[in-house]
Structures are given as structure tokens and as C-alpha cells.
């Protein structure tokens, strides 16, 4: 029989254990060790087909579960009280440590969820790039010898990436004057004319965003197809040269 395992990504053995406790509606303060252990191990069997790095961590917890289970099966040594204080020493429940770990882990798991919510709330507010103060005058220098923090660099970089995501559509995407392939073909021919009929392939690709570059490339292909230009490369890895067709020369036919 293949048992059904809910396909969920577990963040580790404790996470899997919490999941089982929830699903089996177990009272965490009175865990039926036999049931939980067998369920846990069943899951491990299902997961064993995966070669997970974390498998060892799951196995460690399995060992712990089995150990607790066996401890609970041992008879309690009742007659061993040697002094009066013993009645205050409640019998240590072998499950205590595990329960404490689970509860602690669960607290942070919940904190993680609330952080996520908080981040989602924050993400609906956008801000702007700082204004260029140098337009107003010289910025005062507060020279200091203090050490700088390399993690500030990372923060600055991440902030910039985020800002770029916003700027891309605002500045480039919609505002850009789109050059069509036919316009670009004209531009290239004019340029070639001005340069005495030839130029380096690379010079055509020096500026523009990806889209411009694609348009330029398509234009070149079209011009080549029409035999308006030829592209030469003298030697392997040499610079490619674009030559305008000389009137009257139609290839080598």
C-alpha cells in the first residue's frame, strides 16, 4: 500500500513534526509518542527516495523520538526515593525537552509569518530616488576616519536594484521613441555613406538598450538580405566590417 503524504515542503524535522501534530490533532503537552514516532518514520520512508542533505537531520530527530518512546516504556522506579525532597521532584517527563523545542520553534515560525505580512504591507508603498543636492551647491564634507560598513554597500546595491525595477517601465519602457527596423535601416545606410561606405560592426552597437540593439541587428540582417550591405571578416576573431554595396555591383554573380 502507498500511503498518502501531503505534498508539502518541510523546513526541517521540527517542521515535519509540527505538521504531524497539527494533522493528527495531538495535544502537544501529552504527545502519544508511539503514534507520532510511527507517523514520523512513515514520512521519512516516503522521503528516503530523495537524496536530501537534510535527511541526516531528519534521522537524528527520528532517533530522539524512538529514544523518548522507549524511555516512556521503562517502568518508573518508585521505591527509589532516598530523601524527603523527592516528593517535590516531579518525575521528569522524557518528552519535556522535545516539547520545549517544538514550542520554541513554533514561536519563530509564527514570527516569520508575521514578518511576511509586515513586508507585504510595506511593499505597497513606493519611494523616490533622492534628489540631486549638488544642483543646489557644494555638499559639505564631513571627513571622518570612522570605519565604513561593508554591509551598507550591499544595502545600497539592493535598494538600487529595487528602484531600477520601478524606473525601467517609467522612464524607458513607455517614454522611449521606438525606432522601427526600416527607420534603422535608413540610419545605417546614411551612416555608411558618411563614413565612405564602410564601418566597424561594433560601432553600430555602442549605445541603446536591448531593444535598440535587437532592432539594429534585425536591420543589418534585412540589409544583408537585400544585398545593400556586405559583412566582411578578414580573419577569425577579427573585427567585422560592414560595407555598403557599390552601385552596379550585385554580389559575385
Amino acid at each position, binding site marked *: 500500500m502507498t500511503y498518502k503524504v501531503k505534498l508539502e515542503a518541510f523546513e526541517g524535522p521540527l517542521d515535519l513534526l509540527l505538521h504531524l501534530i497539527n494533522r493528527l490533532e495531538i495535544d502537544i503537552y501529552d504527545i502519544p509518542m508511539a503514534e507520532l514516532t510511527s507517523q514520523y518514520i512513515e514520512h521519512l520512508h516516503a522521503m528516503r527516495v530523495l537524496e536530501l542533505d537534510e535527511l541526516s537531520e531528519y534521522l537524528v530527530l527520528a532517533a530522539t523520538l524512538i529514544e523518548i518512546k522507549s524511555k516512556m516504556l521503562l517502568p518508573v522506579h518508585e521505591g527509589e526515593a532516598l530523601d524527603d525532597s523527592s516528593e517535590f521532584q516531579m518525575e521528569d517527563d522524557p518528552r519535556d525537552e522535545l516539547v520545549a523545542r517544538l514550542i520554541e520553534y513554533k514561536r519563530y515560525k509564527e514570527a516569520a509569518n508575521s514578518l511576511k505580512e509586515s513586508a507585504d504591507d510595506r511593499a505597497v508603498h513606493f519611494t523616490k530616488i533622492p534628489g540631486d543636492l549638488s544642483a543646489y551647491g557644494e555638499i559639505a564634507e564631513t571627513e571622518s576616519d570612522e570605519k565604513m560598513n561593508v554591509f551598507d554597500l550591499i544595502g545600497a546595491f539592493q535598494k538600487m536594484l529595487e528602484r531600477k525595477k*520601478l524606473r525601467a517601465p517609467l522612464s524607458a519602457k513607455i517614454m522611449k521613441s521606438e525606432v522601427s527596423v526600416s527607420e534603422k535601416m535608413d540610419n545605417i545606410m546614411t551612416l555608411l555613406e558618411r563614413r565612405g561606405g564602410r564601418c566597424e560592426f561594433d560601432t553600430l552597437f555602442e549605445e541603446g538598450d536591448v531593444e535598440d540593439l535587437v532592432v539594429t541587428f534585425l536591420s543589418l540582417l534585412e540589409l544583408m538580405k537585400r544585398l545593400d550591405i556586405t559583412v566582411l571578416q578578414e580573419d577569425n576573431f577579427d573585427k567585422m566590417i560592414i560595407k555598403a554595396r557599390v552601385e552596379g555591383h550585385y554580389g559575385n554573380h
Partner: protein
Amino acid sequence: MEIIDERIIGMLESFLFIAGDDGLTLKHIATLLQTDDESAAVIAEQLRLNYEGRADSGITLRLYGGSYRLVTKGEFADDILRMLENPTRNSITQASLEVLAIIAYKQPVTRVEIDDLRGVKSDGPIQTLVAKGFIMEKGRLESSGRPILYGTTELFLDKFGLESIEMLPPLIENDEESFGDTDLFMTKFQEAFEITDEGGKND
């Protein structure tokens, strides 16, 4: 209530506008407005109230990580996101979030402590969080191996909408009730009945 000069509110707005993403601390605002921290806070609050009260305002004022920043109002988020080609919202994995939560609450904290708490290795998430600028090294523990102590950054406070690390919501203490919905339901049920009972006695 003291009436705040309208001009000084406008002045603050112009400062905040220029500061943009960098934001301004209360101290900095006080210096710029040539006043004390307390008055600066009052003026900032008035500016915020102005924004919130006006439907024709697209921006508002927020305090994140100790810096006041002008930000767009949440109600326009969808309109703004519509312009983005591929709006990638916080793509942070559950594992990274767990590690981040542990660091946020227990900082400064070592990797081993985090591993122990989660029951799994946390190297990957820690590396991700450093690269995202949410956590940083806050020194080393003076013990064998001198392990790195991790703490959160200002960017973390900013991106998670927190005024300061003290403003993190408290961890759930004893969450006997939160285990299983049935328990929660029973507790609430009992509470409800206790109230009714007491009400009865008072008659």
C-alpha cells in the same frame, strides 16, 4: 493645541522630497527645521495627517528604521504595479523568513544557535539574507572558533515596515491555545461561558 505654521510643514515636505529613499531621521529633521526633536515630531505628524486626510494626495509619510520617508499611498499600489513588466513581490523563501525571524528576535545570534532552533542547517538562508542586505555581521562571539554574530540591518527595518527593532511584535509567549483550532475554539467557548456565568451571579 499649538497651531503649526503652515510654511514649516511645507518646508519639511520639501526636505523629505529631496531626501527621497534615504529618508530623514527625527534628529536630522530637527536640525534642518532649526527646532527641537519634540517640535519636529509634531510637525512631521501634522504633515502625515494632512496626507492621510486628503483624497487627492498620492503620497504619505512613514517612519521606517528610524527614518521618515515620503512614500506613495498603498491604495495606488495596484496602479503602480500595473506598469511593471514583471512585478516580483517579496520572493523570500519560508526558510529564509524563519532564519530572519530568529535573527531579528534573538540578535546577536550565531549560526549554530539558529541551526539548533530550527533543527536544520541554515547556511543557505543566512547567505541569502546577507546578500539581500537584511542581516549583517555584528561582531564575533568570544568563544572557541569565534563564531560570527548576526543581527539585522536598517534595510531590514525599512523593507519590513518596522520603525525600529523594538517595534517588532512580541513573540507569542505561551501558546497552548494556538495548538490546533479545536483547542482555540474550546478556550473561547469556555471564556464565553464563564462570562455568562458571572453575569448570572450578579443578578
